[in-house]
């Protein structure tokens, strides 16, 4: 019986993914962001049929089995853009570190200042990190993986949709600087926007995304220990 549930929920989730993927590529609206729209579809189905989350959970473990290998494969785009790092490595790392620190510290300040629960703040700390690594960072420091995904998706969607315009308003016009900022803040969605601006900003964004993930994973647990 258990296997039947797992099969049914996996089919439901794959269907929701396929549908939102199709809608996203058809209409290109951030509303159809695959994680956002896909998970809303699944959640609504569970609510409508009064299925408790505990029944869905075992299928989650089956479906995410390949997430680990997929995350390791993120080394490949980083490797393919290694020339960028070879030329301006120190400068790039320095700027990504500063940007990541700004992100992490502002989350902690606003979170504590507005009286949020500790685990909510912790889950939000890695919100500019690509989702698979953000989930791990949140879990290691005492946050919740689902909340972490929500913050990551919200940041990526805002940063991807508004980032290019915002950077223009802020006076950041140099192409590589824009790419670097997009990758540091808005991870994969930022990389997508940076690629539209050109190959070089795309490579900057892709390297920035990986560096931000590594750097944040090192400092987040320490900061949580000291500050929270």
């Amino acid at each position, binding site marked *: 019986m258990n296997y039947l549930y797992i099969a049914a929920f996996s089919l439901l*989730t794959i269907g*929701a*993914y396929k549908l939102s993927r199709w809608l996203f590529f058809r209409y290109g609206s951030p509303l159809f962001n695959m*994680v956002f729209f*896909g*998970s809303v579809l*699944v*959640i609504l189905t*569970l609510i409508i049929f009064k299925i408790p*989350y505990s029944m869905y959970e075992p299928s*989650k473990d089956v479906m995410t089995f*390949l*997430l*680990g*290998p*997929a995350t*390791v494969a*993120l*080394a*490949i*785009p*980083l*490797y393919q853009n290694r020339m960028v790092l070879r030329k301006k490595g120190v*400068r790039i790392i320095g*700027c*990504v570190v*500063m*940007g990541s620190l*700004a*992100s992490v510290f*502002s989350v902690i300040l606003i*979170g504590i200042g507005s009286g949020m629960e500790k685990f*909510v703040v912790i889950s*939000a700390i890695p919100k*500019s990190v690509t*989702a*698979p*690594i953000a*989930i*791990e960072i949140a879990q*290691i420091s005492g946050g*919740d*993986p*689902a909340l972490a995904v*929500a*913050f990551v998706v919200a*940041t990526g969607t*805002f*940063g991807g949709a508004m980032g290019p315009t915002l*950077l223009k308003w*802020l006076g*950041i016009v140099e192409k*590589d*600087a824009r790419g670097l900022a997009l990758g540091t803040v808005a991870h*994969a969605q930022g990389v997508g926007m940076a690629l539209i601006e050109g190959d070089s900003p795309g490579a900057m964004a892709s390297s920035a995304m990986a560096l931000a*993930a*590594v750097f944040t*994973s*090192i400092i987040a647990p*320490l900061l949580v220990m000291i500050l929270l």
Partner: protein
Amino acid sequence: MLKKTSLFVGQVLFLWLVYEAGNKIVSFFGLPIPGNVLGMILLFLMLLTGIVKVEQLALASNFLLKHITFFFIPIAVGLINWVDLFLQHILALTMMVLISAILAFYLTGFLFQYLQRRSEK
């Protein structure tokens, strides 16, 4: 077809082994970073040193990276437990996401642009 399938499975298995190696090393030495980050760094080093070639992993890595967003859906379904919490903090959470993203955008972009312009002079 069969050859392609076994190649795919083999590549996934290799990525999975690197992932597990990352996890094992992290827990053995009590390192404060996630195992998957170390796995990623390990694969990056293997590519740099030429132990592994990108083409040898192309089939599996292209597929997994193309569909990596799929994996976040089942995880995000867990939000069903936090609906009340979200509604309770909706304003602060929105401000947090927006302000922190704008600050990080500005600092990263401004710094890099400044350094670029300075070195061009």
